[in-house]
């Protein structure tokens, strides 16, 4: 059955993939879930109004109430380019679908909304009264109605104010099945979080990551770059068992005192504590050799070297490897603080995919952010690939003029074989031997922070003015 799905007008690329991930979650499918989507007449693909084909009301309700970006899912009773068309359309909608919801004894509420233009309360009332031809027999209850209805319109706003280019006005009337509970975003907002780091993940994005990863109770979720635990907090909210590692022991062990650390971030919301936090290096993970297929999802925000750089073990040895291997004197072995070397993004992502391929269960998901430079000449961005993984979604979020981050969702579709393992080991050694070469290639920091003139070859300063008016992915 076709439903009208109305999204919040933000994080545009995340909306459908979140929806499809949740559909897979509630139908018990780990792999890609492709739903049938349809746009209303004349609508831009970035419009908040979409039609989606779902097998049942129950599924629609489950998806809507778990999602972050679904404003509402509606059983559409009618639509049209004008009130006359809308009335015609609602009247022709079968009575047996309508009667159960407008019967005497039930309570209802109608809201009037418009996209792209604010409408006054008089006009709202006016529009509501035009619906009187529907014989509502129940009583109005604004606080806790049995049935909710919504009259929506996307207005003919004409001028471009950051929204998709103008379309014709279209009205929709439908019965609401459910919508996102955005109150959790207030509960978990970072400004009330006790322990924060410079790259703590925003609550909304963290929940979106957890939804893309199909987190649910009883699942084990791992974050190899746990930091202050902001991603695991979201996973834990949805009932997952969590585990995190970080190379910086001050962050995972000490925090800012006994009541301000990663544990306290879970305690603050009454969430179950992570199964474990440990200090480990993603480059040399300490997992026992026979251990595999244990995590249901791996969710992380790897260090890209823009706001925070990655580190890996073997610092002095790697840096001074030319002169001779570095040995820790025997009397200094206890309490020795090992030095670390910078960790290039390419190597970090290689290790992440290798870890996921080995440690994820079949059908398990790897969800992580991958940075890309927004260089107009470079064409379509390429993303990491791995024989064990199928790419499900890439959702871009623009961070600055120069770069954006893309939420990559991958699903494990093939087992981790010995061939893949030995290839990964060879690649690991290659990174180690040519450490300096790999550090220079793809240094995102210098590309993001280089002076404007270096990038702008013509020197005309046109680049900034050529920014498209339509904000698209900025919202």
């Amino acid at each position: 059955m076709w439903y009208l799905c109305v999204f919040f007008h933000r994080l545009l690329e995340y909306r459908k993939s979140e929806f499809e991930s949740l559909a897979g979650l509630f139908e018990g499918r780990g792999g890609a879930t492709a739903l049938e989507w349809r746009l209303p007449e004349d609508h831009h693909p970035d419009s908040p109004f979409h039609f989606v084909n779902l097998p049942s009301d129950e599924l629609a309700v489950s998806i809507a109430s778990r999602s972050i970006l679904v404003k509402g899912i509606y059983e559409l009773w009618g639509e049209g380019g004008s009130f006359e068309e809308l009335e015609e359309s609602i009247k022709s909608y079968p009575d047996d679908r309508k009667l159960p919801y407008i019967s005497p004894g039930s309570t209802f509420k109608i809201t009037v909304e418009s996209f792209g233009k604010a409408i006054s309360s008089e006009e709202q009332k006016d529009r509501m009264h035009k619906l009187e031809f529907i014989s509502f027999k129940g009583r109005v209850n604004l606080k806790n109605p049995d049935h909710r209805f919504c009259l929506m319109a996307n207005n003919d706003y004409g001028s471009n104010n950051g929204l998709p280019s103008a379309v014709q006005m279209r009205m929709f009337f439908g019965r609401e099945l459910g919508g996102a509970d955005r109150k959790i975003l207030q509960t978990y907002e970072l400004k009330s979080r006790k322990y924060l780091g410079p790259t703590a993940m925003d609550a909304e994005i963290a929940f979106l990551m957890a939804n893309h990863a199909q987190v649910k109770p009883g699942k084990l979720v791992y974050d190899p770059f746990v930091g202050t635990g902001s991603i695991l907090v979201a996973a834990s909210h949805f009932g997952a068992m969590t585990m995190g590692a970080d190379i910086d022991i001050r962050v995972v062990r000490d925090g800012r005192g006994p009541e301000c650390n990663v544990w306290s971030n879970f305690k603050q919301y009454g969430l179950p504590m992570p199964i474990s936090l440990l200090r480990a290096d993603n480059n040399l993970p300490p997992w026992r050799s026979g251990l595999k297929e244990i995590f249901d999802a791996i969710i992380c925000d790897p260090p890209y070297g823009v706001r925070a750089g990655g580190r890996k073990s073997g610092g002095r040895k790697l840096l001074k490897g030319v002169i001779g291997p570095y040995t820790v004197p025997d009397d200094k072995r206890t309490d020795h603080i090992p030095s670390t070397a910078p960790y290039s993004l390419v190597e970090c992502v290689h290790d992440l995919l290798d870890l996921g391929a080995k440690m994820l269960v079949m059908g398990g998901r790897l969800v992580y952010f991958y940075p890309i430079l927004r260089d107009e000449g470079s064409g379509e961005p390429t993303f990491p690939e791995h024989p064990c993984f199928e790419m499900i979604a890439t959702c871009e979020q623009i961070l600055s003029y120069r770069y954006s981050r893309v939420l990559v969702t991958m699903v494990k579709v093939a087992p981790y074989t010995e061939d893949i393992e030995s290839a990964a080991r060879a690649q690991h050694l290659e990174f180690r031997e040519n450490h300096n070469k790999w550090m220079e290639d793809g240094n995102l920091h210098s590309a993001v922070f280089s002076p404007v003139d270096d990038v702008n070859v013509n020197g005309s300063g046109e680049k900034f003015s050529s920014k498209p008016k339509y904000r698209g992915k900025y919202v």
Partner: protein
Amino acid sequence: MDLKEEGRWGEPKGSSVSILARLEGTEERSCCLFNIFLYLVGLSTSPSAFCLRRRPTPSQTPIAAAVQLHRGVVRMRLLTHNMLSSNIKGVTNGFPLLIEAVKVVEKEVDFNEDFLKNMFVKVEWKALVEASRTLGYTELPESAEASMLDSDEFLRKFHHALLELHLEDGALVCPETGRKFPVSKGIPNMLLHEDEV
């Protein structure tokens, strides 16, 4: 008296919230609350000065003496121990890591049958049995098979060993080289030295 030196609270002075949380349900609660009150207003130097009954009796083994019901904070569990190995370069047999326990705590954790059943097939049973014995818990059977998962009693024991025994301070020791990976505040430090990479 420094609470940390006393070794029974494990956390720096002044964390009265966690102290209260941990004392919940013990019969000395009111006595302790009074002491904490004195401590907070500065009349006493320690919140535990009069809580003599909470000290372990001499008949207990050293490990059992260190085990205490701990409601505040979670530390390293045996599930984690079961997943870790020594990954020092050249070490072929780094699993299971031996446990040197300085401080062990127990914490009640919500029981999740599905999770336990999922984990059962992944866990190295022998290593789990040995590790739980090192921490003073001897109830686990020597060997286990999937059919035992139908028994609620077995699941409870498995749950307790896997998730409720926590190593707070101590070390994990590489069975081949004897290298110690310290565990402090419940966080295992698995980072390798430069020459072990």
